Each structure stands twice: as C-alpha cells, then as structure tokens.
C-alpha cells in the first residue's frame, strides 16, 4: 500500500489577495485551506508550484514569497494562455489547487559570504524576488547585494510595493531601468545588459542571478562574461511547459535533465553542459 | 405528446430568430421541446455543430435561416444551404436517421410558418423517439449484434 503522497493531488487553497501588478501580470496570495499543512509547509527559494483552476488546468509558477515570510504563498501570473486567463478572473475567496514545492532551488548555502548581483527583467523578477527577500531576511549571511531590475515601461514594472524599500535600504543597491524614456520616470533608461555594464559589478567573490525573457538572458549572459564572471558564478532559472511536475510525464526534458525535477535552477556552467534545446 | 425530447435549434438572428419572435408575439402555440441557439447567420453554422449535437445526445437538430436571396449578409445562407444539405446526407452513414436533422428558411414575418416548422419537426423527432447515443447505447448495441452474429 501507498505511503507516499499522490503527487498529482493538489492541496486546496484560498485566494487571499489579488494584486494587479502590470497590465498583464496579476499576483495571487494564497493560503492552504488545511491550516496544519500550511503551518508545516516547507519550501526553498526558487522552487515552483503548480496552480490549478479546476476545470481548466494547471500551470507552473515560482513561489515568489520567501519561506521566511509564511503568511501566504505568492504567485505572479502573466497572461499567456488558457489557465493564466482563467487565473486572472479570480478574486479573493476563490478556491484554487496548489501542488508545491516542486523542483530544485537557488543554491543559497553556497552563496553565503559572497556578493550577490540580481539581474531581473519583466516577470523574470519573480523568482529573484524570493531569493532577494530571503537574503534580506538573512542579511548577515551575505555581503553586498545589488539588484538591477528592468521592464519595458514603468507600467510593466511589477512588485511596485517592494521598490520603495529596495531603493531606500542602506544594505543593498537597487538600479531600476526601463527600455525607453517615459514621463515621470526618475530612474535609469536603457536595456538591462547595457545598464549592467554601466554598473560594472566586480566578479570577485560574487554570484550573479538572472532571470527574464530569453533575449534578455542571452545578452545579459554576454555582459556578465564581459564583466569577467565565470560560468559557475552565474545562476538562472528556466521555464518550460510542464504537466506532472514530478519528472514522469516526459515533456520538460532538455536531453537527460528534467526541468521540473533537475531544475528549474541551473548555473550557466550546468546549462552549457545540456544539449541546446531551450 | 410524449415526454419532451432534446431538440436544439440554430437560428439566424435576422430572419428565423425574428420569425420565432413573431410566432411568440402572435401567440402561435408550439411544443416546448425546442431550445434555440441564436447565431448571426445560418452561414455561421459549422456543420460540425450539427454532428456534435447529434452525436452528443440531442434527439433532433433544426437549423433555420433567411430564405435564399434574403440573407442579411447577402450570401451566408447560400453557403449554409450547401453545407447543411451535405451534413443531412452524411448522417445515414454514421447511423443517424436523417430525419433528426432538418434545415429550412423562415423569415422574420413568417410567425405562422415558424409554428408549422416547429410543430412538424417536433412531431417528426417524436416519431423517431429518443436517439441511440454513441458511447453507452451504441456499445450495448454493438455487443448485442456481435453476440447475435457469433
């Protein structure tokens, strides 16, 4: 008889709060209905979860609230397909399914004592937010923390509620940028890789963590290389079409690696080892 | 008439839906089996709607549009006429009585004609009785036939 959990069976959760982050991104804060399980719920920064709207289906999102702040689990959802458009119709009180945590996480243990550079673009900021907040909550474990966060326009910038804190904190450096000039914008204007080169972070005892749209990742990697970062000093997190989330259903593999169990977090060195099928 | 059967009508907004309205305004009594889906034009009807509805368990499907040459969109019902005729002729090969599907033309002023159409079609479907459904019913039938052949 089975002692292990049915890996396909979601926990039922209630939407606490819905935040319209940008015109096409909404954030959902949910709690598991089973209080005991919610209390015991454990996960690591960078792990993902599957959100279910029963009748429509499941989709994968990173848990972008840190395990150090357990009032709720936060997921940010960009409007792309059937499940996400249904998620966007939800309001507080609505019931969803949650299967989490899934996948691996950021190797924060090995980052202890190092300088950290976060480079996030658009919705790619979501996984970085988890780790950033986690590090801020364990601030003494890390040395300098800097964040470069870019979006197409001010409206497309998510997590606006975090930005005042991040911008004013003394224990981190925050640079915000948008692609093109916009009225009222008081931060940087320019593409992320270019701004990153301007920031000129030293690779010495530093880890860069980056996530964003494929084209941004491509040029950010180039920029980081130019700045002298080694492949194993760069960490990123991938997105793939997933179904089961537990390495069975067979679609999210890149060669031998299943993004849902072996990922989504990879160092650039690991990525380079994988066949070229992103 | 016996127990209600499931009859689904697809009506164009401009003529036949209006004709059904006119029938209502005129209090032209009709059987209650029919459920109407309103569409802009008979040309909007993908023949697959008819097939999906019948194989999905409806006992009858009725399509009605503007009379040929009177289409609100000038040509929609011309295309519909060909497509619907084809679907009607197709039904026998999948084992569905073609009498379960009819298509016709009723204008917005023809309340009386609408009444006649609904009465006639409902009677026709009742004469055929409840449809044998793909899935359960037909599986039983297949088993029965196999047994009788064995």
């Amino acid at each position, binding site marked *: 008889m089975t002692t292990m959990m049915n890996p396909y069976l979601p926990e039922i959760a209630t939407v606490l709060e819905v935040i319209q982050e940008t015109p096409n991104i909404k954030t959902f804060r949910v709690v598991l209905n089973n209080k005991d399980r919610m209390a015991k719920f454990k996960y690591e920064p960078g792990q993902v979860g599957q959100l279910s709207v*029963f009748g429509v289906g499941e989709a994968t999102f990173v848990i972008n609230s840190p395990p150090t702040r357990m009032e709720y689990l936060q997921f940010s959802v960009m409007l792309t397909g059937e499940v996400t458009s249904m998620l966007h119709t939800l309001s507080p009180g609505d019931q969803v399914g949650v299967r989490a945590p899934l996948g691996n996480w950021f190797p924060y243990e090995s980052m202890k004592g190092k300088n950290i550079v976060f480079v996030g673009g658009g919705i790619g900021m979501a996984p970085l937010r988890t780790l950033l907040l986690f590090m801020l909550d364990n601030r003494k474990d890390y040395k300098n923390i800097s964040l470069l966060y870019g979006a197409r326009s001010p409206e497309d910038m998510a997590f606006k509620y975090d930005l005042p804190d991040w911008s004013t904190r003394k224990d981190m450096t925050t640079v915000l940028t948008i692609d093109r000039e916009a009225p009222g914008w008081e931060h940087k204007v320019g593409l992320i890789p270019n701004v990153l080169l301007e920031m000129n972070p030293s690779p010495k005892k530093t880890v860069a963590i980056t996530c964003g749209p494929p084209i941004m990742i491509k040029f950010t990697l180039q920029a980081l290389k130019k700045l002298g970062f080694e492949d194993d000093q760069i960490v990123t997190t991938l997105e*793939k079409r997933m179904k089961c989330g537990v*390495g069975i259903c067979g679609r999210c593999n890149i060669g031998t690696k299943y993004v849902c169990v072996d990922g989504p977090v990879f160092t650039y060195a690991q990525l380079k080892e994988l066949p070229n099928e992103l | 008439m016996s127990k209600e059967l499931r009859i689904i009508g697809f009506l164009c907004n401009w003529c036949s839906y209006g004709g059904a309205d006119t029938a209502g305004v005129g209090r032209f009594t009709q059987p209650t089996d029919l459920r109407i889906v309103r569409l802009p034009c008979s040309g909007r009807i993908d023949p697959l709607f008819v097939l999906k509805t019948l194989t999905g368990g409806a006992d009858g499907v009725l399509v009605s549009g503007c009379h040929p040459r009177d289409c609100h969109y000038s040509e929609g019902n011309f295309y519909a006429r060909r497509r619907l005729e084809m679907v009607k002729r197709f039904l026998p090969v999948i084992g569905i009585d073609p009498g379960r599907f009819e298509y016709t033309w009723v204008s917005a002023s023809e309340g009386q004609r609408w009444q006649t159409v609904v009465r006639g079609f409902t009677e026709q479907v009742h004469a055929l009785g409840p449809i044998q459904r793909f899935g359960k019913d037909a599986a039983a039938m297949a088993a029965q036939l196999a047994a009788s052949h064995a």
Partner: protein
Amino acid sequence: MSAKYLAQGDLSAWLGALAQGRRVLVPVRENGAVVFRPYGPGTKPVLTRQADSPPKESVFPSTERLMEFSYSKDAENLGKVALDIKETVNAPATVVFGGRPCDARGFTVFDRVYDTKTIRDPYYAERRASTLFVTLACDTPETTCFCNSVGSSPVDADGSDVLLTPVDGGWLVEAVSERGKALLDAPALKDATAAAQDQAKAAKEAAEAAMPPAWDAAPAAAKLLEKFDDMGFWDDVSAKCISCGACTYLCPTCYCFTVTDERSGMKGERIRTWDTCMSFQFTLEASGHNPRPTKAHRLKNRVGHKFSYYPDIHKGPIACCGCGRCIKLCPVSVDIREIVRLAMELPTATAGKP
C-alpha cells in the same frame, strides 16, 4: 514449483479459470488488427503473431481519471464557492495473457519512472500490482523484431509472471514470479514432462538463433548526444516522418502523458491521457514558443530518450523493447533501427540516408 504443461485443447479451460474474478486480456482479431480485449466465453485468442497494439492499456490506460472535483456554493453567499477533490485510483485485478516478452518487458521501463524511491504514481503502481503477465515466448521473429539488440531476447521473461513456451501439442508453463506461481495452481495445467521441458529449452534456443544478428545498441547513448546539434542529420532521418503518434502510442515503453481538465457544470474530472512527443503540441508553450518546433527536433527526442537519456538516467537499460511496432505500423515505415545505427555509424540496409 516445477514447470507445468498446457495442452492446446485445455487453453480455454485455463483462460476460463483465470477469468474467474478478474479480467483477462487476450489478443483478438478485429477487422485485421490484433488488439487486447477482455476474455469471455467464445473469445478466440490470436497466439500466432504479435498483437498490433501492445497490452499497454492494461496498466496505463490511454485515458484515465486522476481525480474528480466538484464546486459547491454557499447558500448565503453565492459568490463563495467551495472546492472538493477526490482521488480516483482504479486497479482491477487483471491477467494479460498471450503478450510477448517484449510486451511484458515494456513495463519494466515504466517501473523505473513511475515507482521509484522518491516518487510513486499511485494509479500506475496499484494497477501494476494488480496485473499479472502470462507471456508467450516467441519462436520466429517478424521482420521488424530486434529485441536482441536492446538487451532482451524472444524468450526473455523479464517483466512477466508466467512464461509459456511452445512445445508439441501445447505449451510449457513456467512461473517467473511468486505471483505467477499462484496462477499455475489450476486443473487445466498438468505437470510438465522432462521431454516437454527439453523441447522448451530447445525451442528457446532456436528462437534466439532465429533472430537476426544482434547489434549492441548501448553505445548509441553517447553517439546520439554527439549528434544532438547536427540538425542536418535529424532533418534527413525525419524527412519521411509525418508526425503522427502511431509509433509512440503503440510502443510498450512510451510512457508520456498529458493532463487535462474536463468540466460539466459544477463538477468535472482531471484526466490523464497518452501523449506523444511527436506532436507539435507536446512541448508548445502558452507563449507560442516551442523548444521542439520541427519534426526533426521531435524525432530526435523520441530516439534520444529511448537510446540515450533514459539509459543515462537509469544507468543502462534502454527504453526500447525491440518489438518493432513503431516500424511495422508506421504509415511511412520510419525505422528506428536504422536511425540508431546511422547515429552509431553502423551500416544500414539502405546504406546512407533512410
């Protein structure tokens, strides 16, 4: 327990006995295709050739319900809707009778993925536990058979519970597993004579000898990875592929699936269905991006998964049982043997591009 003997005339008696209280799936002919169907009185099993569909459905149905869900409203506040989910595991006691060694072996490929130390798929696992395989050893290979090249043989008992070997007037019946032993306790089965046992041994040897020469597919693992970026190679070998799913759905080892919700009114079900990596939709992302956009990418994944990634992850075994159905039933005869051999730079029947 010693081996038993089943006379041809006693076959239906044994099948009838096996069918008491469980379903017995046997290969039967339907309009030219041989498929597994529940045994009933009068059923005539086809034991002379490999079934067109393997008995994959017995443990891994093409469609199965994972759970039911239902919504219910708060009478006081209609906008407040509660959700309830119910797990639906369904594992009827089953015997799969008359499959071939390759068919039974297919599930060993599943086992390494579906029931491991870290993850257990309860739907699969429970059905696997409730299903027994009475397998018929092969005598003569079909033109598409190549089990001996993927680490198996026409008389391989791996994955089976009982093995039948053709002997004069019937079959030698040997239990392979403990569970299989229980099946042998039947009046239709007689104790096997030594002669029958010798005949069976000879038959097994003959069957193995009848196979075309084996080529070891193990080195393909590395070779295929080397060819990963050689899209010219994959374009060539996939040129005739029409991207249907016949190869994967008829494969005893292909285990990929998709999950879909179907809802009617306030309730519905979450179901899982076979999926195929040959389909464009398999990896299509909501954004429209597809990491495997062409049939060349997808065929690469099918071959790669079977002969490279799976052996790599599971340290050896190839995710192919060599049954040859993907070749035999492919509408355009895409031949996985040729592709693997080409990747391994071995000579092929068509010498060069397929």
